[in-house]
């Protein structure tokens, strides 16, 4: 079967988005050009901008890094890309994937910054799991990971992170927010650029319209160096179920993913009346190292707390809607558990109690 685009080479894949049979060179061309169009249409970058690529060593972020480098050179974006990697401290998993990111640094000729959970929170993921068990640890993954990228960027003086979220991820997120009735997130989750609601750093998703199938095939055909084993602590049951549902729907209705994203984009939450005194102050991250506080978050504060804004975590100074940010709430639970265990020397009781507290927390997040 011939490629429908060039009509001269053998078709190697069927595009999930259009069902067109196309050849490898045409595939690279349409895949990269669509991402370029997403970037240009939204004025995602400006010349001279320093942008961090959230790099996990997995296929999405590796393809992202590869395509960003390719497009930056092809179209002269003039962007200075830096790989930013989080070391969660998961033994065996992160060790290998970090090696992958280190090779990517050389392959893509980019700077690499690694920030560890131990540095940021005083706890590695392995230690967290040892304390709370395997249940609910994805609550920690999510909250800590999100802040870690932001804090890492702020530390580097970078105000923009790109992440490898793809169309399939986006559709899942829309569906999950819909099923959970989380209308606030449903309103925002399809945005290409997510603003600085609880973060001083701008985040964007250049692969927003790229299908997972094409990302996998791009990485495979281009022989990109990525790490393919799943996070050892990963089973997030709800997302898995949403994903299976979408895959099954897609088998009947091929446009399912893009349809769900469009529905998500069209969904606009009815605006509530603005509260007085809580205006939208734009805060610029100011990079300055402060002495590490003893206990609590062992994070060098990268934000200028002298601005005296009310929407900051009172513990760590991180932007937050509540007096104490989610990460600090979780840390408090962990630290209390650690202290309790040290005092009582009775780990079973302490751990059980902790899990109960965490289950309540998980519901409220």
């Amino acid at each position, binding site marked *: *079967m011939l490629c429908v685009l060039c009509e001269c080479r*053998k*078709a*190697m*894949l*069927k595009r999930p988005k259009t069902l067109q*049979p196309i050849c490898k060179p045409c595939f690279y061309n349409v895949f990269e050009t669509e991402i370029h169009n997403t970037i240009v249409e939204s004025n995602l970058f400006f010349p001279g901008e320093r942008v961090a690529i959230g790099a*996990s060593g*997995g*296929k*999405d*972020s590796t393809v992202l890094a590869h395509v960003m480098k390719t497009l930056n050179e092809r179209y002269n974006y003039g962007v200075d890309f830096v790989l930013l990697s989080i070391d969660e401290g998961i033994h065996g998993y992160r060790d290998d994937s970090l090696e992958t990111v280190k090779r990517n640094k050389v392959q893509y000729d980019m700077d690499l910054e690694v920030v560890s959970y131990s540095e940021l929170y005083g706890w590695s993921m392995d230690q967290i799991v040892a304390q709370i068990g395997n249940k609910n640890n994805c609550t920690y993954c999510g909250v800590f990971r999100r802040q870690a990228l932001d804090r890492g960027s702020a530390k580097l003086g970078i105000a923009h992170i790109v992440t*490898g979220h793809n169309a*399939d991820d986006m559709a899942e997120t829309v569906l999950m927010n819909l099923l959970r009735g989380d209308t606030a997130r449903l309103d925002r989750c399809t945005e290409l650029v997510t603003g600085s609601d609880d973060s001083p750093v701008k985040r964007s998703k250049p692969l927003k319209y790229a299908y*997972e*199938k094409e990302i*996998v*095939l791009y990485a*495979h*055909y281009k022989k990109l160096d*990525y*790490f*393919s*084993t*799943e*996070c050892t602590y*990963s089973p997030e049951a709800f997302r*898995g179920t949403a*994903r*299976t549902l979408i*895959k*099954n729907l*897609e*088998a009947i209705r091929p446009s399912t993913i893009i349809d769900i994203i469009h529905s998500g984009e069209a969904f606009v939450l009815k605006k509530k009346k603005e509260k007085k005194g809580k205006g939208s102050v734009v805060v610029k991250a100011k990079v300055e190292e402060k002495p590490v506080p003893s206990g609590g978050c062992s994070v060098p504060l990268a934000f200028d707390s002298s601005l005296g804004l009310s929407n900051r975590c009172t513990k760590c100074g991180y932007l937050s809607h509540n007096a104490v940010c989610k990460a600090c709430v979780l840390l408090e639970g962990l630290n209390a558990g650690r202290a309790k265990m040290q005092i009582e020397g009775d780990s079973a009781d302490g751990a059980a109690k902790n899990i109960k507290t965490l289950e309540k927390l998980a519901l409220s997040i």
Partner: protein
Amino acid sequence: MQITVEFSGGLETAFDGNKKHVLDVPEGSSVNWLLHHMVETLMPDHKREEGKNIFLQDESVRPGVLVLINDSDWELEGEDQYILQPRDVIIFASTLHGG
């Protein structure tokens, strides 16, 4: 005749953990035959029920698992009706895992 089966995206964990297998198969076998042959011979007994669930659905490959026949999307090759040829390389890549 000999063919090669490869896993990526973590799918090998549904089998015996090896990413690559060289298999002897009868001539004229289809990919559908191969799928069941793989479940019978490449999955350890104690993991077969669970592994089959990760790999197959309604007697074919579960949606979300990509299949490449000599690097070509199996959707262009007749999917599980494809008749295996000597020295074929069949890749099963799961897209269901994060990354």
